[in-house]
């Protein structure tokens, strides 16, 4: 138990540093800054207190907002991802997810990538539409959502297979 808490605090700090020092400066193709910290919500233990999870998501987003001067855009986006995670999991893993002994080990790769992709899609949609906040720029919003989303998804998939958590 303590081990899980420790690992999550470690991930929390490390993902913030990686996000603000590396990925926010990537500027791939001039505008793509992947938001890899979304993988925190994928790694977070499944059988956890939902309220606590949302509060943690709130602070994770908030700290990244302070660093990148984006007010509360990351906060709102990651809060929503945290709130929607159980629904997304039921959608991706079906009723299996309800069982006690459910873990990521007995799911297929496709299911896991779908979950990750949906989380990233929700996060980026909220982030970019609130950042630009104008219907006239809907094409710009969609371009940013999909370009950044695909890069984020690729990086997150790589991370999740590189550092696959053993505790879950």
């Amino acid at each position, binding site marked *: 138990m303590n081990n899980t808490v420790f690992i999550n605090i470690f991930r929390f700090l490390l993902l913030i540093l990686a996000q603000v020092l590396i990925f926010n400066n990537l500027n791939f193709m001039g505008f793509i800054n992947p938001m890899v910290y979304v993988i925190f919500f994928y790694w977070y233990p499944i059988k956890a207190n939902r309220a606590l999870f949302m509060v943690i998501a709130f602070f994770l987003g908030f700290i990244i907002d*302070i*660093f990148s001067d984006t007010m509360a855009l990351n906060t709102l986006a990651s809060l929503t991802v945290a709130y929607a995670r159980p629904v997304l999991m039921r959608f991706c893993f079906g009723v299996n997810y309800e069982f006690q002994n459910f873990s990521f080990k007995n799911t297929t790769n496709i299911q896991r990538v779908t979950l990750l992709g949906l989380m990233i899609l929700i996060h980026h949609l909220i982030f970019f539409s609130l950042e630009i906040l104008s219907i006239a*720029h809907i094409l710009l919003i969609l371009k940013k959502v999909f370009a950044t989303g695909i890069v984020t998804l690729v990086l997150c998939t790589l991370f999740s297979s590189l550092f696959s958590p053993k505790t879950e």
Partner: protein
Amino acid sequence: MQRIINFILRNRNAFLYGFLAFISLVMTIRSHSYHQSKFFNSSKWLSGSIYGTGADISSYFGLREENNRLLEENKQLRRLLFNRDDDSLPVLDSTLVNYEVLSAKLVKNSYTSPRNYLTIDKGKLDGVQQDMGVITTMGILGIVENVSKHYATVQSVLNTKSNINAKIKNTEYFGSLIWDGSDYTVAQLIDIPRLVPLVVGDTIVTGGMSSIFPENIPIGIIKKYDLNASRSFYNIDVELFNDMANLKNVYLIENKDRNEIKTLEAITTNE
């Protein structure tokens, strides 16, 4: 009453979500209509010093390029100095100096979002104040927005809230420099009347109307222009001289007369 409490308890996660989302929405919308938050920005000591450490490490990789740039600037300044008409040295009486210049290093750059803020490694203790102008060797960069003890955030010209007085070089036709958020190499100059003769390639410089920037600081050149919807003013695309993606050393300009000008203007509009 029991039912209401039960209802709230049953949906406590939804309520918590609503509450937290409300907080963040309020903060976001406030920052859309007003300035960057005074309390939560990257000039604070923790974020500032983490960025400072990051910049310390990464600055080693650009030393050669940065040296060349400074040499180039020194060369230009020396050329100016040697070609002065009169050989008298400039008078450096502090009561006559209008603009004070400070130097700083950028610790965080950003140009992909519609509202870009930069962070520099000088703060209140180094004499940085809100509303100082920020430039580089190449041209204009932005305006200081928030100041902490050791760091400050700068509202970049690449910010949809930015609005800077600019004019066409060697004329007195002035307009406002804004940014539409799409391309980080191009800003927009609006409110230039249609009777003004324009040529692609003309230089745009800062105008003298603002108390932030001195006159004639280079901004960029005209890339293309057309008339706006009412067909009485030009919308001009200005290609910026600064490569906004590649910045390191910046200069801050303080206008000594700014307070006097501001007070005078405040009195005038009150009457």
